[in-house]
Every structure is written in C-alpha cells, then in structure tokens.
C-alpha cells in the first residue's frame, strides 16, 4: 500500500526574490523570483538573451544584481547572500555551490591536469594532504564517470564531453548543497549529450543534489528537471511542474516554444 502523500513541510533550500539586473539600459532581469527545495531540480528555459544565464550567474554570486534578495537555507549561512563581502562570497561559492559552464574554458584551467582542476576546489577549501586530495579527486572524477586512466591529462587534450565531466567532477568534489548547470550539454553531439545527461541523472538520484539547470534545449530540461521556469526578456512568464508545463503550456510563448520543439 502506498503512503498517503505528505504535505511538503521542508524549508526551501534556495530562495531568490525579485532579482533585477540591468546592463546599461537593457533590463536583463526584472523581478525574477525562484524557490528550490532540497533535492529538487529546477529547469530554466528560454531563448538566447532571455536572462537565464544572467540569473544563474547571480545565483553563483558572480554577478551582483541591482536589487533582490537571495538566501540559502544552510548551516552558518545567513542573510541576503548578495550582501556578502568578497571573501565570504568566495568561500561560499567554493564550498557550497558547484557550477558547470557551457564553455569549459570558463570553469577549467586548461593546461593543468584534470585531477588538479578537481583538487583546486579542495585546496581552496583548505585541504592540505596530498594523498587525500588525490583520492578525493579520483572519487569525484569517478562519480562523474570520467575514465580514470586519463585523470592527469590536461583538459585541453580531452574531448568536449570529457571536459564537461571534469567540470562536473570539480563542481561535486566538495559535495555542494547546490549545483548550477549552465547549458551543460550544449555544443556536444547528441550521443555524448545523452551520456552526460545520464551521468547527471544518476548523480542526482544517488546524491540528492539540488540543481538549477539552464538550457534552451527542452529535451534536456524535460529529462532532468522536476519543475520548470520559462523566461523571456528578463521575466518569468510561466512556472510549474515539468510535465504540466510541457503538456499543458499556458503562456503563449511557452506554447510556441513547446511547438517549436516538436
């Protein structure tokens, strides 16, 4: 017999409220709010220039918004994270938030070894034992299904899919509370894309990592996310459960997007 569904009582892990950001007179984000519960995957879809990547950069504290608040429900993390000083911001990003960029050049040191790229995270967090670094880097690379015999090869010698796996290993090395994925599979061919998505799905199921994934590819979002946010011109036009949004889109733009996919 199945248990009766429980009312969700857990606190949301991530709460972003009314985030606005403009570059000159271009409003990249206008009053964007998002809530993500622990273990949940939030997908953000939208066309190029809709502000989805800017929002993700704000969540990674790389971009400082003009206004808005951002909280993470974690021990020892209090208040509006946009107000943190640069030192606290760096430590928070290094230890609690992992990010995978579309362009591996942004997230990786291309000429250092792959295991070194992963170890850097641990070094920033203060790990000073070589053997532990080595072991943890190997574990993280293994978890992201990277071939371990190439763990000391520099990313520049690796294929695009492998580079994304190194980025992923780096992002999960410290077991972050929040994993941000910015178009993680764009630019990969379809079969490699499917493999990387498999890894992400597996990681999500095994580790219950909370994720925010940004993509213009509805297929990617549909595969991974529980809930979806549709953005256009810096605003959220529709939000809801993934199946609901894709099966029964309400907003004209979402309808267009879903149809365009088919």
């Amino acid at each position, binding site marked *: 017999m199945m248990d009766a569904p429980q009312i969700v009582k857990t606190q949301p892990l991530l709460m972003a409220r009314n985030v606005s950001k403009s570059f000159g007179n271009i409003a990249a984000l206008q009053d964007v709010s998002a809530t993500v519960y622990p273990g949940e995957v939030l997908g953000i879809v939208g066309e190029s220039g809709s502000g989805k990547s800017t929002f993700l950069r704000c969540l990674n504290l790389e971009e400082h918004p003009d206004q808005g608040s951002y909280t993470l429900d974690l021990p020892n993390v209090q208040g509006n994270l946009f107000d943190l000083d640069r030192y606290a911001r760096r430590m928070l990003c290094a230890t609690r938030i992992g990010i995978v960029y579309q362009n591996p050049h942004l997230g990786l040191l291309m000429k250092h070894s792959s295991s*070194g790229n992963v170890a850097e995270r641990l070094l920033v967090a203060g790990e000073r034992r*070589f*053997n532990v670094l080595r072991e943890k880097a190997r574990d993280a690379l293994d978890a992201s299904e990277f071939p371990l015999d190439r763990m000391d090869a520099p990313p520049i010698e690796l294929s695009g899919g492998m580079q994304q796996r190194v980025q992923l290993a780096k992002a999960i090395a410290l077991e972050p509370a929040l994993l941000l994925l910015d178009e993680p599979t764009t630019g990969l061919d379809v079969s490699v894309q499917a493999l990387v998505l498999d890894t992400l799905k597996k990681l999500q199921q095994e580790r219950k990592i909370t994720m925010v994934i940004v993509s213009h590819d509805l297929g990617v979002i549909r595969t991974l996310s529980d809930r979806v946010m549709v953005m256009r011109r810096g605003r959220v036009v529709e939000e809801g459960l993934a199946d609901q949004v894709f099966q029964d889109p309400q907003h004209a733009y979402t309808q267009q997007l879903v149809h365009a996919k088919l």
Partner: protein
Amino acid sequence: MSLKSLTKAWEPMSYGFLDASAKREIRRKMLKAIAVPGCQIPYASREVPMARGWGTGGLQISCTLLNPKTTIKVIDQGADDSVNAASIRRFLAGVSGAPTTTDTLKADLIQSRHRIPEEILREDQVLVLQVPNPEPLRPVQPNMSIARQMHADADYGRMWLQLYEQIVRSGRVMQGASYPSLVNGRFVMTPSPIPRWDVPKMHMAKHLTILSAGREKRLHAVPPFTKVEPLVFDDVPYKVEDHGAHVCTRSGAKGYFMNEIPQDDGPSTFEVSDSELGVKSIHRADGEAVQIGETWYKNGEMTE
C-alpha cells in the same frame, strides 16, 4: 635670513648616491613592508649606475640604510669575490665611505644575491636580498591586477595547485629556488631565488631581511622573529638540497650548501658556496685563530 642659509651647500653628489627624496621614499616603503610582513609594497625605484636586473633593488636599499659606520658585506651566489659582488661593494664604499668586510660576523649590512650566509645572523644585522621577480603568483596568474586581489583575499589555491601538479607529474616538488613561502601566516612571498636550503633560515630569524626588486619596483620584508613556512603538503615533507654529505675539496668543510664543479673525466667535485666560510675553514686548518660563527646547519641538518 636668506634662502641660502636655509639650504645645504651644493654638493656634486648626495651621500649614499641617492638623493634625499629617493631615500625617504625607500625608508617609508621599508617601514610599511616591515609592518606587513611578506606584503609587496610598490616603491619609486630610481636609476642607479647599474643595469636593471643586476641588483638595483638591493643596491637602493643598501644606499638608503648606509651610514659611515656601517660595515658592508656583498655576496653573489655566496661568493664575496664575484665581479658583481665586488663592484657593488666598491660602489657602496665609494658613495658612503663605509668600511667593507667579507666576514659575515663583522658585517652590519649584507647585500646578497641568491644566498643567505651559513653563519647565523644576529639581531643587529640586516640582510638585503636582490629579487628579480617578487610576485610568487606570476606563474599561475599573469595578470598582475588579479594577482594583487588574490593576495588581498589570501587566495593561494593556485599556488598549492602548482605544487600538486609538480608532484603528479614528477613525483616530487620541482621548485628549486625561490620556493613560495607563507610569511606570518598571511602572505605568500617568493624569498628571492635562494635555494630551498636557505628558506628555513628565514623562519623566526633574529635578523631583518629586506627583499627588493628594482626592475619590478616592489619590496617586501621579513622582520625579525617572523614565521616563514614553505608551502608543503602535510604528507609530503619539505626537502632541502641533498648536500649534507658533500665535502668541500678546497677547505674540507662539510654539511653546507655546495657548488658543484663538474670535472672533465665525469664526476663532480664540490666547493662550499659560502666562500667566506670556505676561506675561514682553510685558515683554521692552517692553525690560524679565526672565528667561525654558529651555523644554521650542522652536519647538513638544520638546527632548531
């Protein structure tokens, strides 16, 4: 009162070569550097009659610190008699009238390139090191502005990563000279290209060390009794050069940093790098009464 009575009489050259404002600039920046151990302080580096890269940074510090009673010693790679050391020493003596020496124990001011003398320096001695590249982050971050931010944030992950990479690639830390070291638990500095052998001598040393880069226009300092810890992983111990067993062929001194002299027929002989220590050892062997000070290393082991 006339203007003339308020000014000094015209002289062909300022005392100690540098003019008063140049010396004031360096004094101020030295004070700042001593107040923040290991932090690189930019300063207005002046022209001196020597090419940049030949010790102009050290020379300016020495010119500023000199007075007629300062006894000067200048060494280059441990040797008092190399051309560079000899001409700097002659220049310093010429512009200040200060006495010179080759004996580490008698010197008040020691300007050095690439070595720290083997005899333990005292509280009243100042060591001036010539630094070609004062920025330890340069190999990992070529952008100087970002490197400065990294220093401000104590963001040294990349430095550690460099060591990690060396161990992964070569099985050991390959950094030979200018081994990056953490000063006073805060700033990572490059201790000028002294060998790994000399880095532990800076830790909690009694003397003041000033490191100055004339071309890069920055100086930093290790004040007396300041912690200087080479960056090492907890489970990969710091190793100095393996010179403990070598014997100097000229003086018989053993357990010090050596210069390797390759021989035509294959093997190498060794000669103690601190030339004055070698000279003293020879005199002592000849039965003369020479005073050799306490050394940092005894039989090739660093003393506590």
